[in-house]
């Protein structure tokens, strides 16, 4: 069983840690360097955890638990207007990032208003590209309840953050955290920090359930293994975007244009198979500069193999 953890420390002697991760068969999920400071999010075999922790402390760093590492989460507000941004949406995104998630902040084009709020098909498709979505709504119970149509058709898990606790929305979203609402300043008081912790805990719970469901029919290959392979791909190495490869629970987001790279990426070989045969690759609905790679489950790959051999399923 692989475990995800984060090294937070200096660059000095960090090569020792990176070599160890490679030696034990682990994967670096994300490496961020800022001047002389370095954070490394890694996925390592559980039995080597103690040894890795020893190396991290020996080179002067700290080890942090990052339960949301390897996920990309959208924090969605009704609009990008000053009524909703930056607080509390950015505070929530920040606390999720501290737990290892990659976050994006998104405002709907026409999400404001009680009777007039809308979400477009494109916005829904964009949100469905993420592992989970946190919807942040306001202070009035009737408004929060009336706006449930914004997220009721979203396919990924939804965590609703609102001011008052709404009624009858338990079936519409996966978790509800009340007591936040509209804010005009940073959430910095002890009660507000607790509320942010509650949001991150609920997000973690929801994603654990999603992970468990994925384990029932595991992916043919772990996203981190594809990441390792793609890191050597020239257009990704040359990409200047902050995180050119973002891990999802069931795949990856690659920040290179689909039209120029889909053939090369599909032809890469993983465990003796073409990547294009074990994944579904599509262009991101955000724009053409990134693509989404969804990894098939083992059973999907088996079915595909059988179909390719001309197997006809028995008539029930």
């Amino acid at each position: 069983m692989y475990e995800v953890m984060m090294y937070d420390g200096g660059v000095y002697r960090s090569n020792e840690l990176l070599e160890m991760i490679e030696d034990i068969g682990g994967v670096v999920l994300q490496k961020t360097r800022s001047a002389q400071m370095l954070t490394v999010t890694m996925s390592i075999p559980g039995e080597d955890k103690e040894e890795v922790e020893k190396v991290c402390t020996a080179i002067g760093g700290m080890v942090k638990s990052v339960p949301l590492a390897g996920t990309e989460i959208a924090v969605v507000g009704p609009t990008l207007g000053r009524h909703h941004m930056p607080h509390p949406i950015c505070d929530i995104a920040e606390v999720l990032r501290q737990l290892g998630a990659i976050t994006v902040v998104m405002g709907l084009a026409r999400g404001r208003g009680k009777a007039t709020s809308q979400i477009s098909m494109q916005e829904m498709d964009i949100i469905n590209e993420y592992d989970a979505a946190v919807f942040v709504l306001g202070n009035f119970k009737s408004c929060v309840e009336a706006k449930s149509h914004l997220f009721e058709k979203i396919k990924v898990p939804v965590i609703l953050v609102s001011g008052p606790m709404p009624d009858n929305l338990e079936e519409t979203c996966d978790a509800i955290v009340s007591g936040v609402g509209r804010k005009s300043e940073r959430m910095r008081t002890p009660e507000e920090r607790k509320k942010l912790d509650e949001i991150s805990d609920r997000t973690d719970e929801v994603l654990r359930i999603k992970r468990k469901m994925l384990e029932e029919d595991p992916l043919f290959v772990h996203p981190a293994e594809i990441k390792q392979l793609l890191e050597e791909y020239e257009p990704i190495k040359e990409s200047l975007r902050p995180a050119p490869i973002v891990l999802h629970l069931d795949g990856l987001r690659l920040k290179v244009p689909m039209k120029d790279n889909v053939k090369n990426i599909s032809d890469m070989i993983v465990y003796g198979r073409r990547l294009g045969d074990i994944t579904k690759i599509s262009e991101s609905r955000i724009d053409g500069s990134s693509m989404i790679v969804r990894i098939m489950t083992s059973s999907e790959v088996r079915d595909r193999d059988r179909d390719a051999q001309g197997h006809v399923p028995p008539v029930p």
Partner: protein
Amino acid sequence: METEVTGPDAYGNEAYKKLFEALMGEMGKALSLDRAKIFLDPARPLFIFTIVMRTEPESKTIADAASIRTEGSDVHITISDENYAPEILSALWRIYGRDSVDQQTRFDIKIGNGDDERIAGTEITSGEDAKQEIIGAMWRILPEGIKARHNISEGRIITIAATEEIFTQELKDIALRMHSEVRDSANV
């Protein structure tokens, strides 16, 4: 500033009271307000904000925010209220041009061949500007989707009512009633 919030949603009332006080403070308007009465009905939706200012905003001239003296043909202006420094400078630039306005320090300005009486009487802000700023602050506090708005301004009392779609006469009457109540109780 005394703030009273009424309406059927207790959570929203409390939250909007905090928002109103925080945003008015942030925008530097809290000190100019005496009291505020807010009615919030999200189900309808109807939001009414009535505020009573401490004094009715009046227009200000350069002489109100700076001292002016003449030495020979030069006029020297010393700004006493820094808040109006940009307005004073831009008014002088408008009259005499940038080359003739010599800003010697942050607060000291010299104008060659200036007319001290004309400078003293130049208006830098009108009472209407101050009211507009307060109305702008209230619009910022109102929920974003509540776009249909109706303003009532009378002396030092301003009322803003807002709803989402059609502003009916019934809603206007409710706003006017609240405006009148506040006016009578504030003894304006």
